[in-house]
């Protein structure tokens, strides 16, 4: 049922796209067939792999850096509620800084190579995971923590057993948003200054008024995001297998 519905929506979207292509013309909207042809072309000459690898590398390193810090920091802050409270407005202020506006600055500081993009991705990803994980760590049930302390558990066990498992669903909620954003951030970073990457490819196509190239780049990025998201869904289903499924309780 669900699969059939998905196929129908997918087919409808492609049909709509094709109609728009006919109605508005190729210079405004490229047709699906052109994009399939172009994708096959750049896949064959190695361009696709080179650009996708660059973008994914930036996204992955940036994600590890920003995501790792965003997940671990709330667990460290748990040990000192007063420090957390003191830092609260600063986290909010840091969140408020428009990261996009920082991108040119980062390029100035870290050059047009991979490093500036990694830092940019990390800055974007950090906040999604930090605030989600912080909420998760704060959702600990005191009675569970008290129970394991009575067994003789130390703070480390409380953190690893109670805080971690309580926060995990929140971490996944953060990842759900953060992973696609990591890829978008890498692409945006490449718009600004780069010599490779899907963002570079798209920007280059724009400069040369190559509508097909532009659409192809955007389509490839979208497909990458979908693939990463599917992987995440699988990991989440496995990690949170203990949770009662909503279909069991009829919600």
């Amino acid at each position, binding site marked *: 049922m669900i699969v059939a519905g998905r196929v129908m929506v997918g087919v409808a979207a492609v049909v709509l796209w094709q109609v728009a292509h006919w109605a508005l013309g190729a210079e405004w909207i490229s047709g699906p067939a052109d994009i399939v042809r172009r994708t096959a072309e750049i896949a064959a000459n190695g361009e696709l792999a080179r650009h996708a690898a660059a973008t994914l590398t930036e996204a992955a390193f940036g994600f590890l850096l920003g995501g790792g810090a965003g997940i671990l920091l709330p667990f460290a802050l748990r040990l000192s509620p007063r420090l957390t409270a003191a830092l609260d407005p600063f986290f909010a202020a840091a969140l408020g800084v428009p990261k996009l506006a920082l991108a040119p600055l980062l390029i100035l500081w870290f050059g047009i190579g991979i490093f500036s993009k990694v830092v940019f991705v990390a800055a974007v990803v950090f906040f999604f995971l930090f605030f989600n994980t912080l909420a998760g760590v704060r959702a600990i049930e005191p*009675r*569970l923590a*008290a*129970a*394991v*302390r*009575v*067994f*003789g*558990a130390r703070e480390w*066990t409380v953190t690893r*057993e*109670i805080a971690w*498992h309580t926060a995990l669903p929140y971490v996944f909620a953060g990842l759900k948003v953060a992973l696609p954003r990591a890829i978008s951030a890498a692409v945006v970073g490449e718009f600004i200054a780069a010599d490779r990457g899907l963002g570079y490819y798209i920007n280059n196509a724009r400069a040369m008024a190559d509508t097909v190239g532009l659409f192809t780049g955007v389509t490839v990025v979208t497909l990458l995001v979908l693939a990463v998201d599917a992987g995440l869904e699988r990991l989440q289903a496995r990690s949170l297998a*203990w*949770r*009662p499924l909503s279909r069991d309780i009829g919600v």
Partner: protein
Amino acid sequence: MSEPLLGVRGLGKRFDARAGRAEAFWAIRDLSFAVGERELLTIVGPSGSGKSTLLNLIAQIDRPTEGEVRFRGQLIASPTAGTLRPGWDRQFGYVTQDDTLLPWRTLLENVLFPLRVQNRLSAEMRERAAGLMHAVGLEGFERHYPHELSGGMRKRAALIRTLVYDPPVILMDEPFGALDAQTRTQLQEDLLRLWNLGRKTIVFVTHDIAEAIALGDRTLVFTRAPARVHSEHAIPLARPRDVASIYTVDGFADLHAAIRKELA
């Protein structure tokens, strides 16, 4: 007279005023009693009479405002004692009113969890856990998560999770409170049978007079908050007891009536 196993003297706990509760209030005050080695002491009192607060103080989850608790003569809780040490180094087990099984662990992992925390997970201990699970009818459910089990099964699991690591004193806070009558009787019988095998010291809190009589060697009747000991009754009913028909045993009815009058 020799030193009791557990001595509570002049104990008091005040909860400070905070938003939503205008006045500071004493949950317990001037509370004194003693518990002997291998005794099953029941405490019965009206709802909200500070019974859970008392167990939290003994278990070192919370700190008293005044008074002291001694264990084998050693001072373990007082307003000025150092850092709280929940469970006092595994000397106190605590079976609480609500469910504190870890929802992300299977039944077996939950039962073995205290042993794992204490680094005592041996083949022998696994066998002991399996024996306890068998004794309360939980075998075959080892790989279920808590939410997949009935309320009664979760209570049984919580009970043997504490029994398996064998703390000398077990505190029980209305552990069978939210169960239907039949499951409740079954669990009371399980508890008495397990207690008979090991004869631990148990402090069992309840608001059910019949339960207090059916289980205890002795029962304390608490006043309304701030809780103090109103009176004390030895329970001379012979053991082993049959919980299901305890109502018909000689002496039960009189004791029940006397305690009910005191609680009124």
